[in-house]
């Protein structure tokens, strides 16, 4: 019987419940046994649980206990699934990466915290990575299919990334007919724009499609909402935020840039009030600038 563990590290606390509710995953679980999931009353000392076939891990490493648990479960698990964007890139939880422990807790609780928040992938090598906030139904189905291959034994020879990784814009339903000519007419608050159904960027709305991996089947876009980047960087994108800034730089007011010159463009860029929130909502711990800032603070 396949033995499963559910390890929830510091997070919003719902990714693994979502996973459990998925009918295809649930069927697999019913045929096996859940040996660890404190949120649903299944507790135990990881040292005494014995070997686990599949451990699903969600969340980030924020507390010292998170790290201890993570390392223990990597040791005893045949297959580790990093589930959800927090576990791979930091996710929304990662927005606190630059906060020192004292800014988050006080008194004796400070001692519980790590110097910064990091994704699971910074500490261990998972076998399967499933991004999404939360991962979509299609990705969960893909996960179920992948797990079935290994239920009776073995593990993936190399890390499996469960989404294609191509850039979201490639098959976007709002893709401009001639992307080469696409231009961003300025930077606008999405709440102020009467959406005309065209590419969000062509309407002046910040959409992270150009730098984000497609693993959601354009879910937000189909709901007339710009991409927020929750699937993490597309293949070839090293730093989601820096690459997005590069993309904007190449298309913002490009037909008028000679006339406006730097002061005119800078004035428009000033409208971008919150680059951290817009560009690093899900990947701040992985940002080069974060790493630099933490290194200066002596945090590796």
């Amino acid at each position, binding site marked *: 019987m396949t033995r499963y563990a559910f390890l929830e590290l510091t997070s919003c606390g719902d990714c693994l419940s979502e996973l459990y509710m998925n009918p295809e995953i649930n069927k697999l679980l019913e045929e096996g046994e859940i040996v660890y999931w404190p949120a649903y009353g299944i507790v135990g000392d990881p040292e005494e649980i014995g070997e686990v076939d599949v451990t699903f891990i969600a969340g980030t490493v*924020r507390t010292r206990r998170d790290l201890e648990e993570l390392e223990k479960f990597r040791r005893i698990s045949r297959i580790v699934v990093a589930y959800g964007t927090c576990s791979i890139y930091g996710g929304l939880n990662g927005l606190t990466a630059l906060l020192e422990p004292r800014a988050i807790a006080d008194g004796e609780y400070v001692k519980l915290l790590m110097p910064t928040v990091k994704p699971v992938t910074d500490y261990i090598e998972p076998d399967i990575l499933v991004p999404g906030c939360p991962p979509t139904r299609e990705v969960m189905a893909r996960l179920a299919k992948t797990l079935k291959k290994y239920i009776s034994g073995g593990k993936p020879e190399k890390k499996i990334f469960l989404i294609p990784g191509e850039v979201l814009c490639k098959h976007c339903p709002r893709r401009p007919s001639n992307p080469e000519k696409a231009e961003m007419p300025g930077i606008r*608050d999405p*709440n102020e724009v*009467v959406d005309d159904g065209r590419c969000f960027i062509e309407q002046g709305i910040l959409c992270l499609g150009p730098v984000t991996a497609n693993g959601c089947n354009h879910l937000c876009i189909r709901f007339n909402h710009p991409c927020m980047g929750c699937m993490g960087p597309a293949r070839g994108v090293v730093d989601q935020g820096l690459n997005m800034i590069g993309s904007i730089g190449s298309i913002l007011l490009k037909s008028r840039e000679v006339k406006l010159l730097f002061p005119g463009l800078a004035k428009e860029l000033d409208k971008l009030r*919150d680059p951290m929130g*817009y560009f690093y909502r899900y990947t701040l711990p992985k940002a080069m600038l974060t790493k630099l800032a933490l290194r200066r603070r002596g945090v590796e």
Partner: protein
Amino acid sequence: MGKVIVDPVPWVTGYSRLTVETSDDNRVLSILFEPLEKRGLEKVLKGRSVELLPTITPSICGSDSWSHYIASIKALDIIYGRKPPLTAIHLREAGLLLDILESHLRYLALKFAPKYIGGDVKPLVEVINDVRVVKEIIGGRTRNPIYGIAGGVTRKPGSSDVEVIMDRLSRILDILEKTSKSYMDKISSSREYTAKLSNDKYRLKNTGFIALLDGDGKIGYYDGRPVILGPDGSRRMVDEGELIDHLVVSSRLGTCELYGGRNGEVYMVGAISRINLGKTYSEDAEEIIDKLVELSGGKPLINIFVEPIARLVESLDISYRLNKLFRDPSWLSGESISFEGKRTNAGLGVVESSRGLVIHKYGVSGDGLVDDVEILDPSGIRLPVLNKLLEKYRGSTYSSELLDDVLEIVKIMDLCIPGASKTLRLGGVRG
């Protein structure tokens, strides 16, 4: 003196610890439940562009993510000075109700039924799957929805969507009508459960109740006004801003004082509070409430083991409301966004969630950045209620049965630690 530590505490979302201190003669000196999951997410809300908050704040508590989302969008409506049209209001309300329904059903299926109903959870799981389909149609995702915008919603369901919605909703109501009857029969004949309902140990003491009610005194999940039923039985409507002041006297994490009242009283929120204070829409739900009142010895309902049945009542009532809403979906033909309005520098959004009140209050600087945030999450309001209940064990002889009993109360309280353990009042604590 001895100490028993349960770490992590089971049946709780997120990381927490329970400490029981005992005397040399094995009497319980104190029991404290502490949230230990520190994230600091609320701290990084300050300095964000306000329009981003609805996409970040659902992460405060994953299992009540829609409530945080809708509260955040409502705060945004005020900041942008917009009044959403009826179509948007109904779609937001429907999403909120569906999320509360799913959360209630998950609680009943995973935390309650296996022990007290005999594990018959298949009908509930079927309903959960239907609810999730409808949620995706309305808000895009089962968690962290994406259909809100200041002054409305970004998408209306099409006619084929509506057909699916109506079909699923009707099935949900049908199953829940049957399930609630069979559950009530089983509960009424369960000696273990009825004994708990009449046991004084599980009665909330010095506890008030807070719920949102509409103008007719019915539960107003989306746009009700807060009403407080004090521990002394007094009942009054309060201003939402006043409510924040009323509840917060200390931000000392992990203690009874988090979200307590000024006079040492605590406040219960969620299904028990709502059915204590407001009326439901469905006669079937009212019938169950009558039965519950009979079983637990009168109103207000103050026994913590009423919580699961209160959630069952609400599940039935919510599915009734949803069916009523979509029976004549002509409201869907209206506009879904209103862009008219003048911006302001503060916004407040209050809604109910499965566990109770969610309040988001934002202050915004001239350049649109958030400069003040106050967020109340229901698990934080429930924490002191739990710790107050655990005080009743003081002086009892410690045993493994006592610990099991305590953990059962923790399970019934259904806390979400990521939501409860945040730091409050970035600008300092009043009190």
